[in-house]
């Protein structure tokens, strides 16, 4: 009986085994690190004001980046979902570039625009905002590497909204703005929220670009690296665990919120 099942489902079985390898490869390191941690040390780390400050800073900076990204990215996503123009594919390709640009190189590139002695950096410097080793720099770095996630997700969301719903709304007397805010936006809402979550999470995870642009004030991923470099693995580990846990809690809570509304 079982033998018969194995014979007829040999492919499924093979696929399950291969898939299991990669699944365990992802889950085991994270699981082990979290489960094998000493609660006492974790608590100590939790009470370490430097750690907590850096985690808050990370969450906060990523949140600002996400807010800015949402304001500027959602309209762009709507345009890309609805309009057809020559070179549209090129624009879409360019927007996705930050995902594939090496993070440290991205940091260098940003430095050449937002650095004290360059274009935008100078302009902002005149009004007292500087990007190197500052909160603003962290936000800029996070925004750069994470914005494509939001735009792609929102674009997909808008694409799934039947254009004819907007058309019906127009024929019923809605202006383009009304059609957008009453029909398209509410219907694409879930994708936009999911995109925001992804963008926030991706911002929190960034290390390379931030390291170049703003080593200080220290965000959590930088702190993990600093402790690893300075004190070694055992000191870096509780910070990393705490950071991963915060990430997961935020990520899971928000995702559940989105999926709950689905029902």
């Amino acid at each position, binding site marked *: 009986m079982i033998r018969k099942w194995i014979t007829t489902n040999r492919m499924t079985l093979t696929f399950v085994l291969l898939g299991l390898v990669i699944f365990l490869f992802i889950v085991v390191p994270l699981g082990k690190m979290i489960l094998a941690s000493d609660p006492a040390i974790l608590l100590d780390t939790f009470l370490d004001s430097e750690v907590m400050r850096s985690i808050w800073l990370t969450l906060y900076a990523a949140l600002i980046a996400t807010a800015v990204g949402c304001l500027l990215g959602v309209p762009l996503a709507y345009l890309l979902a609805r309009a057809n123009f020559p070179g549209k594919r090129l624009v879409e390709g360019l927007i996705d570039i930050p995902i594939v640009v090496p993070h440290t190189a991205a940091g260098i590139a940003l430095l050449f625009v937002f650095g004290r002695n360059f274009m935008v950096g100078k302009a902002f410097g005149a009004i007292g905002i500087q990007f190197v080793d500052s909160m603003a720099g962290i936000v800029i770095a996070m925004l750069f590497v994470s914005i494509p996630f939001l735009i792609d997700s929102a674009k997909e969301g808008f694409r799934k909204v*039947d254009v*004819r*719903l907007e058309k*019906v709304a*127009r*024929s*019923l*007397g809605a202006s383009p703005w009304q059609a957008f805010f*009453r029909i398209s936006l*509410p219907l694409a809402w879930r994708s936009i929220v999911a995109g925001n979550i992804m963008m926030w999470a991706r911002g929190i995870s960034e290390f390379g670009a931030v390291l170049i642009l703003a080593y200080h004030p220290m965000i959590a991923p930088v702190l993990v690296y600093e402790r690893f470099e300075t004190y070694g693995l055992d000191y870096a580990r509780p910070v990393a665990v705490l950071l991963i846990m915060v990430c997961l809690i935020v990520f899971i809570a928000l995702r559940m919120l989105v999926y709950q509304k689905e029902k």
Partner: protein
Amino acid sequence: MIKIKNLCVDLGDFLLYDISFTVSEGEYFVVLGPTGAGKTVLLESIAGLYPIKSGEIWLRGKEVVRLEPEKRGVSIVYQDHALFPHLSVKDNVIFGLRLRKEKHQEIKVTLDWITDLLSISHLLHRKPETLSGGERQKVALARALSTKPKVLLLDEPLSALDPETRENLQQELRQLHRVLNITTVHVTHDFEEAIALGHRIAVIGEGHLKQVGTPEQIFRQPNSEFVARFAMTRNIYLGEAVHKANGDNIFRIEGTEFVSAADTEGTCHASIRPEDILISLEPIRSSARNCFPGTITGIIDKGATLYITVNLPPDISCLVTRHSFEELELEEGKRVHVTFKASAVHLF
């Protein structure tokens, strides 16, 4: 009321060109054409929802090509109803009224009126996804009518429904039009729907308007093979028309000569509607000028009626009821006689 002049729209794959027609106040105008003929785009052009390439669109004596859709006073109902999925039935219906910032009391009056008219009052608090196909389409109609548009555009409103619901809603549409007398443009690919509802019918195909006329004209006097096929005239022949010395007009095909009441000459098409042809076992003495013997070569069973193909030659398809079919004991190979009037032979 509606005047379209030399309208040309780009559909990507092909052009819809040189479309001109007029719909008068209170008319129920049907646009008939195959799937993918650009019927939906035609409606969207009238509503201002699709950019046109050239031409003029007049609504109530005003050129509206540059007018925004929300200012045209035109409502549209799509085949798949296009209800707003995140709003309740009620909010769907009053969507247009809310935009107009009407007073609460006025909205209530209109809502009651329209939901009573379409008997959907019991659905008001449901979400669109929980409705049946027929109910959805009624809600879409209510929503379209709530703003009291000058023109109602219906884009295959019955196509997505099952036969029974379709027939009911068809009756409802006719009834609604009788009550409201609103100028309506209804597009469909279903010939039966077109003649059941339309005051006039426009047949569209291969990128342009083929014929505009009353159902009777489209039905009996198609001006092209395309229209004849669409009107399900099964008997379409290409042959030779001649005037005979005795004054008869003859259409000659495969050695058989049909007498026609039309007076065309030369190579042309002839169409004879299957329901205009009588089948009998013996020749019939009557005023009908055409009577031919032939052999049954095919039977297409449609349930209540059947199409009998008789080879004269040529093959000619005749409609009989199940009743006659059983009475005459028709079957393949049987010798029969077909009879039809000269006026049934339309030449074009």
